[in-house]
């Protein structure tokens, strides 16, 4: 019952900078972060040249999403500490916040909670760079934004179908687009030159067993997404808890106390990690 050919969809995603439905702020950002050899200095200048953006980025950097104990007071400190990929991801996160809220109310809250949960799990698993997993958690559903912007009627019908038949949203998406928001997110991450691991996490967060390069990080975002939905933070297309993938679950070996800790961390920080105004 595919209404839209996935090749057309992919083409649209790759030419996002030309789509009339995409707001200027995202196009501008897209043009910057897709540059092939962009440096940390260039990104830093891009942020610093906009006081409002600087403020939003610093607020997010110092929030529970990243869990830094110290205060990061400057953009250059942030870029030096976090690195290019995390800063790019963070920039996207703050820039699409309003867009997320407009296209799907509750999506930003869901994404924020997922970023926090991903970071906590990554720290428990002693990953060297939990911030990178945090970014993946923040952006894992960005594909939904583009789908809603460019194909609002079919997507809304997908959401209706999901609600009426108790289907996960990605199944209803597959019925109409022959692709899911995970695929779209993966294409976007590729376009924006994120590293292969991050692309993979976004692409396979619903099918973590397919992640060959970053199985652990993918499992983390998969489980984080499930936990956010289990707790009921935000809204991401429908109100279902997905069944956790057993391979991913067993890879993480989270104890009952770990789960409680993750839930508490999300709970404590959801009101403080508000909109980056």
């Amino acid at each position, binding site marked *: 019952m595919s209404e839209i050919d996935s090749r057309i969809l992919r083409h649209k995603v790759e030419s996002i900078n030309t789509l009339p439905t995409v707001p200027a702020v995202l196009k501008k950002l897209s043009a910057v972060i897709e540059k092939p050899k962009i440096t940390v200095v260039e990104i830093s200048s891009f942020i610093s040249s906009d006081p409002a953006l600087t403020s939003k980025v610093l607020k997010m950097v110092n929030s529970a999403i990243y869990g830094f104990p110290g205060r990061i007071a400057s953009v250059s400190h942030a870029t030096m500490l976090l690195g290019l990929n995390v800063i790019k991801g963070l920039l996207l996160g703050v820039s699409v916040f309003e867009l997320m809220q407009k296209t799907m109310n509750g999506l930003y809250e869901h994404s924020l909670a997922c970023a926090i949960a991903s970071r906590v799990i990554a720290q428990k698993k002693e990953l060297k760079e939990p911030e990178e997993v945090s970014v993946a958690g923040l952006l894992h559903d960005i594909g939904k934004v583009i789908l809603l912007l460019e194909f609002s009627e079919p997507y809304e019908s997908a959401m209706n179908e999901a609600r009426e038949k108790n289907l996960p949203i990605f199944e209803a998406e597959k019925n109409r687009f022959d692709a899911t928001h995970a695929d779209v997110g993966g294409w976007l991450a590729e376009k924006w030159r994120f590293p292969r691991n991050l692309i993979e996490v976004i692409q396979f967060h619903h099918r973590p067993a397919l992640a060959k390069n970053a199985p652990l990080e993918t499992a983390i975002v998969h489980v984080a997404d499930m936990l956010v939905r289990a*707790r009921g933070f935000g809204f991401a297309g429908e109100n279902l808890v997905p069944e956790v993938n057993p391979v991913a679950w067993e890879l993480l070996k989270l104890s009952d106390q770990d789960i409680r800790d993750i839930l508490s961390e999300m*709970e404590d920080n959801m009101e*403080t990690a508000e909109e980056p105004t």
Partner: protein
Amino acid sequence: MPKVPVSQLKPGMKLAKPVVAKNGMVMLGEATELTQTWIERIDDMGIASVFIDGPPVQTVSREDALSALDARFAPIEDKPYMKNLKKIVREHIEGLYE
């Protein structure tokens, strides 16, 4: 650890984070139990809200929260690991209303 506006502060509430004056001086330490006097003092300082110890104020009732939990878990409750997960989440949610 909710952020509570000054107008909703009540004596007996405990601070989750210190109240700091504009010059950086700590006026009230973490874990201070608020009295009416302290609340008025905080208001006089022009502070809009403070972090209070305890679970966040819930916007939905306990019944609604738990029935929503049941509804979203219903289709997959019998899948591997999900029953135990639901139990942990349920206990967490119940803890928010104590």
